Every structure is written in structure tokens, then in C-alpha cells.
């Protein structure tokens, strides 16, 4: 099943970390949050989300715990670790530099 607006390779991790920056969240919440922020352009495929979550946890960037939701259901909540926060700010800075550079190039060619 093709996802509308495939998340670029490598940026998924960053998006997940960003979503968790404010508060701990469960997997579905993360997809909702990203969809919402991206004005429905980015719809995460679960086939990518959960492997990514487990991978990030294995890398020690996030941790997880079971909590009870407002509707009294058990769900696994993910939150950033200290290392995850540092990693995110590094990645963010890098991304901003890159995207600015790409934008500069693209705009230059538009003018030309």
C-alpha cells in the first residue's frame, strides 16, 4: 500500500524524535501528530513506524513504558532519552543547514 507523501529516507527518525519532543506519546499518536503538523501531507506507514520505533529504542534514543490512556486502555508510550534529545538537536541543525542550502540552489535556478 503506497503512502501518500512517502517520508524521505532518513528523515523519518527525525520526525519521530520531533513528535516526541513535547511529551511521551504512543505509536498512533505519533502518526496523528505528524499528519496533523504536516497538514495531512505526511501519512506514516505503520510498516515503517514501528520498526523505526524499535530501532530508535535499541539505539537508546527513546524509551518506552506501558501506561493507561484517558479512555482506560493500555498503550505503550514512547519518550525521548537524554541522548535522544541531543541527537535530535544535532540532526535538526544539520537538516536546517542542508535544507537552506537546497533551497538556495533551487531558488537560484528559478531566478536564472
Amino acid at each position, binding site marked *: 500500500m503506497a503512502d501518500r507523501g512517502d517520508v524521505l529516507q532518513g528523515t523519518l527518525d527525525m520526525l519521530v524524535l520531533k513528535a516526541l519532543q513535547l511529551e511521551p506519546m504512543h*505509536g498512533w499518536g505519533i502518526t496523528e501528530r505528524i499528519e496533523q503538523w504536516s497538514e495531512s501531507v505526511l501519512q506514516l506507514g505503520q*510498516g515503517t513506524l*514501528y520498526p523505526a520505533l524499535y530501532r530508535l529504542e535499541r539505539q*537508546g534514543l527513546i524509551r518506552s513504558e506501558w501506561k493507561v490512556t484517558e479512555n482506560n486502555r*493500555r498503550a505503550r508510550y514512547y519518550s525521548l532519552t537524554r541522548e535522544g534529545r541531543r541527537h535530535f538537536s544535532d540532526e535538526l541543525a544539520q537538516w536546517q543547514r542542508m535544507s537552506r542550502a537546497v533551497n538556495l540552489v533551487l531558488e537560484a535556478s528559478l531566478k536564472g
Partner: protein
Amino acid sequence: MRHLTDAWQWMRSMMRRPSRERGLDEELQFHIDQQTEKYVRAGLSPADARRQAMLRFGGIVRVQEETRDQIRPALLDDSIRDVRFGARILWRAPGFTIAALATLAIGIGATAAIFSVTRTVLLEPLPYREPGRVVGIWETTQDGVTQNVIAPANFAEWRERSRTLEHLGMVGPAGLAAIVGGEPERLKGLQCSFDVFQALGVHPVIGRTYTYEEDYGGKDGVIILGHEYWQARLGGRPDVIGTALATEGGPRTILGVMPAGFTVAGQKADFFIPFAQTVEQLRAYSGRGSSYAVARLRDGVSFDQAATEMRTIFSQLEHDVPERNARRKVLVIPIQEQMVGDVRPGLLALMGAVGLVLLVSCVNVASLLLARSAAREREFGMRTAFGARRVRLVRQLLTESLVLATAGGLAGLLVAALCHRGLLALVGDRIPVPRIEQLRLDLPIVLFTMAVALATGLLFGVVPALVTTKQPNDTLRDGGRHSGSRRLHQVLRTLVVSEVAISLVLLAGAGLLLRSLIKLQNVDPGFRAGGVLTAEVDLPTTSYDTAHAEVAFHAALTRIAALPGVVSTAGASCQLVPYACIGTSFWRVDRAKPGSGERPSCQVRPVTPGFFRTMGIAQIAGRDFSEVDTADSTPVIVVSEELVRQQFPGENPLGRRLRVGFNHVSGREDVEWTIVGVVGNVRSSLDGPVRQTVFVPRSQRPGTGMTLFVRTAQDPDLLTRSVLDVVHHMESQAPVETRTLDTVVGNTIAQPRALSILVAVFGVVGLALAAIGVYGVMSYSVRERTQEIGVRIALGATGQSVVHLIVGQALRLVFVGVALGLGAAMLLARSLESLLYGVEPLDPWTFAGTALLLLTIATAAAYIPARRGIRMAPVDALRVN
């Protein structure tokens, strides 16, 4: 830090796997439920909402799998995936897989088969108590025979004087005619002193061995049976112990049965009997019997100490009794060495040969893998671009090789089992390879085979893996056709060169052995072996004395001569090969008697009249024996050309007289023998020297045993039945063994023949593998160059010239391989020296022939793909891109 976290996570995941995976299910379920609720809120019916949510989620199983991959330890998981992937890849390329598997199965199987023989024969300890402390004792002769039989009188002295050895006993061959179940039967066994069983430290499975009194007491009435004979002929009944076995020398009490597979230094025996001679009788024995000695090192004594002491004792004996011991020495040898000394060089040569076959197979599979992996360079380039590390790719390729090798190993076991059968059939009981019948495919061999297979897999896998994955980014950049190819071609060329070189070494070795075999087969034995049936007959000594026996044999020979199809017939005391009948010394009566140790030695062969004619031995001067030569007439002999050349140079030997060291029919040894004839030389072994020979009439040196020689114009095997009838008509209780003389002679060179055949087979296999290798590499190279070929042809080159170009390039590689191989073969040929007969290790004909053969085969192997290349070009050539 990261690694620690990884390790911690890994451990946690290992321990908490079940709960964690249950957690995953719950987590995914939660996700779907949330999504469903969202759709319901948006206005869908619950059923539709659920369906949409599931659809959106996309394959719950897939998500579970992929997520779990993140939980499980990556290394193990990757390996399993690699194995599956490797197996799939092999499955999809059956042509390649079959070629590679066949190559590996041959290489690995042959190695396993030969290794198991080596292990059984050379490496496994003998089934004796502390086998390393058992020694054999032999004498050497003045003409350089290193393992000669000992003088019983010397043995009596050793037994008394040695302080370093215990349980000194004699061992010698023994034949016995026995009546088992009313049938006469000829048994082959050993005479053993009673100490021999203690020296070896082996006890009978039932009953007992004989005592000092039953041996040195001088009365001969006991027997011990071999397990196999006891099983086969006496039904394995334990109640035969204590009963009497009727033998030619009278009844013998069966004392015991030795364990299954028991041999004395590899000599199988139906029975064991004592020498039954007192120490005084041994001391009085003037000549040499047919025995050697075994003994055990005393506790705390080293082998060297024992050997030194024995040498000291022997030099005293040489000084004290020069007529017996002048210019002789004693040889003490570990029993294992005595057993395998003869077969070791051959086995090691075979090990070397299979090792080379295995190497060629490795190189071959490596080049197959490499040529094939060229097609996969893009795949690897792609994967690298997507972030796969090189280590990961190398690991995957190695895993594929190991999958291949494991399959090859399993197939190799099958080949090894077949090889075993072939080997046993080839060796049969013609070659005395000790313990060959114990050959088996057991766990150690299976483990060895699989270890060889895995080592092979790494060996042939690592080069292609490293070459293929090197800088794959370049590959991607230019479409994967050219950049990798150059490096690949270099490696392929190296592989071709080494393959050619290795198979040349193999072929050169095989060539040397084959040439040596041909020389051996072409040795003129001095008689015509074809068309002769031989029958070894023993008359029971209980009912025949030698005079009666002569009469009976004469009658039998006359009857056989009258059989239809028989050209002529004669008898002799012994087979012509492989042993000298009686070995002794002699001297000219008209010269002063030479001192002890100075006398020339000869073999003495008692024969009936007509023997020379029947055997096709040339009568050079004088006459044959005839009916006028009787026990009472003048003692006469016929001598060989060699004896005349050495003793009567330039003289007429006829009428001269010799003293020869054996007893006349009268029992006297001081008889003067008159030379009445000269015949051509007869060899008693094909690879031995021509010895001086004395023929004596049977009537003047009779016996109760005779070998009948029957010459026929037809297939000698057809006469077997009627000859047996005649013999049994003469004496129904006489055991007979019939064989064609060709078989008798052939058996004497069975070992070099088996070795040459095996190495030649390995050589041909190596050559075939090398040819396949050259063919494969050239095919690949032509495919790669289709475009170039097309352009050349389009520009006016003839097909012929293009073929020349391609074959020429292949030949350059082959030349390099041949040159390297010749160098290596010359270095290694020396190690074959002891196995060669009449051929120099650096025989130029063999080397030139081998090189030529390889060049021819390699040219053919390169020519076929080249032809195909120009046929394909230019039509398809420009289409390749």
C-alpha cells in the same frame, strides 16, 4: 557506549522475548483500534471503519515481522537470511550449481576417501597393548636387503642376552593342510613363539595361548585359531576348544581363538602354531629360516637403547660366528613402521594427489563464482549505495559459498563412499595393505569431510567476495560493465594460471608413475606368463613321503599332459614369483672355498623335466633335465646365464661342478653338482635385480608340495576344472590352489599398478577441472568482449583471426601456468623417487608430454567459446548494450 547499550538491549530482548512480542501484538492492536475509532468519528460504519483502518495499516504480519527484526539480534538473523538467500540463489542457477557441486563433491569426496585410508592404515594405533613399545627385529644381508629373515641360532642368543627387550619371540609364515568337516583344506597361518602373544599384549577371546613348555618343549601338538577362520569354518562354536583338529602333521589340540581382526604386524592368519623347537635345536640350526622376531621394550627402556644393545650383541655374534653372521647387521624397527613402511610412500603420494585435486576444485569453483558474480556487481553496487556496508556484503557472499560448500561436502561423502568401494575392489587381497578391510566412513571421517568442505568454502569464497565488493560505487556509476571487469579479469587470469599449474603438477606425477608402471609391465621376466595355469598342490605328509609324492606328481603331470588343449606341462617346488624358492650360497669346486660372507648367493629352484620348455625359458647351452636324472644318478644342475656371466666369464661352464648350500635327496649337503645346461635369466620379482639361479631336478631335491604349470593354447582358466579333477583323482585330501600365471605375476605389481591408476584418475580429474575452468573463464571473457569482437569483424577482421586472437590470449595464460607447474613439478618429483621404477624423477619425456597434453586440452577449451563468440558477433554484438 553505543555498543554497551546494544549489548544490553540484546540481552534484554533475548530474555524478554515472549513478553516483548506479546507487547508488540497489543501495541499494534491498539493502533488499529485508535484508527478505527477515528474513522467512526468521521462518520463511517464500525465495520467499514475497521476495514479502512486495517487497509491503512497494511499487512499486520509484515509489520510484525519487520518490527521483530529490530528486536532480534541482528547477527544471527542476518546469517539465517543469508543462508536462505544463498540457497535460493543457488537454486535459481542450476547450471552453475551443478557444475560447482560436482567439482566440489569430487574434490572433497576423493580427499575424504584417501584420508580415511591413510587414517586406517597409517594413523590408527595398532590393537596391541602400548603398540609404540613393540618392535620387530630383522637382519640385513651383505647384498643390502634391509629386512631379511633371521637365523634361529642368532635368535636364541638374543633371547638370552638382551636386557632391554622382553618377550622375544619368532614369527614366520606357516601353511597347514587340515581336514575340516571331511574336506581337505589349505590354511595359511603363522608360526609364533609363545612369547609373541605377550610381546603384543593380546589375549585370546576364548581359551588360552600356548605355554613355554608347549613351544620350547619340542612337541608340536597345539594350535590357536584366528577369529575369522573360526567363524567361517567352525561356525564360531566355543566348544571346539580342547578338541583336536586333524592336520597333515597329526592332530592338534585347539587351545584358543584370537580376537577378531587380530594380526601379527598386519599379517592375517587362519591359525597360530608354535615352532616347537627346543633352545638347543634352535642353536643347532645352521641356516636362516623364514622368520623375524618381535619383542617388547622393557619398562623404562627407550627404543634407541634397545637398538644399540641389539647392535652390540650382533657385532659380538658376527665376531664369534663369522660363517653365519659375517657382513650382516641387525635391524630393530617399530612394529608400526614395519607394517606400513611399504605402503606409506604410496599413500602419501595419493594424499598429495587428492590435495591437488581439491585445490584445483577450489580454484575452479572460485573462478565460476567470480565469473558469475560479475553479473551481480550492480546488485552489490546498488546495495552499497543504499547503505549496506562492505563487511555485510562480504559476509553474505561467504555465506553463499559456505552453503555451496556444505552441499558439496554432503555430496562428497557420497563420492567418498563410492571411492571406498572402488578402492577396495582395486586393492582386493592382491595388495597387502594392512588393515584396509577396516576401512569405514565413521563420524571422524564425516567431521573431517565437513571441516574440509567448510575450509574449502572459505578458500574459494573469500577471493570472489573481496573482488566483487571492492569499490562497488564505481560499478554503479558506469553501469557495472567495465570498471569491475578489469580487476575481475586480473583475478580470473590468476586463477586460470594457478589451475593449469596445479593440474600440471598432478599430471606430471601421474605420468611418472604410469611410465614407471609401463616399464615394470614390460620387464621381461625371462618366461612367458600368458596361457599358463598354475596349481599349488600339497600332499598330506601323513600318507606320503617324498618318494611317493614324486611318483604321484609324475602320474598327475602325465594325465594333465593328455588333457585336450594342453600344450605341455611341468612342475616346480615353488611359484616363479615373487620369492626366490631357496636362497643360499654356493662356490666353484675347482676354486678355493671362499670365506664366510664372501660366497656368492643364488636362488635354487627344483623343477621337473620339461619345465624350461613349458615356461618358455630359453635353453642356451647343454641339456634339460630328463628321466635319466634320478635320486641315485649323478647330481646335476642347470644354471642361469647370469650365474655363468659372474662365475665363468669366458669359460665353458658345462661339466663344471658347484657346491651349493642345500640338501641333496640323500640328505647330504656336501654334494658336488655338475652343470649340464645353461638357461636364460628368470626374474623372481619384476622390480628386483636379476639373481644367479640354480635349477635342480625334483628327483634329486623332492618334496610333498608342488606347483604344477600347465601351458595351453586356449584360455587357461578353462582348464581349471579338469586339472582339479586330475589332482583330486590322485589324492582327494590334497588342498589345491589354482591361478593363472598372469594373475600370479600381475599380483606382484598390483601395488604400483593401483597407485598409478589412482593417481592417473586424479590426474584426469584435475585436467578435466582445469579444462572446465579455462572454458568457463574464456566463455565469460568472450561474452564480455562480444561488442569488441563485433566491431573487429565489422571492420573487416576475419573470424579466423579473431579466434586466433582469443585463443592466443588464453594460451598465454596457459603457458604461464605450464611454466609455473613445470617448476613446481620438478621440485616435487623428487619425493616420488622411491615409487619409481626405471624412470628418472625428472624424466624429460613425461614432462614434455604432460605440458603438451595440457596445452592441447587448454587450447580446445579456449577454442570452443571463441568460435561461439564470432558466430554470435556481429549481429548480437551491438545489441549487448
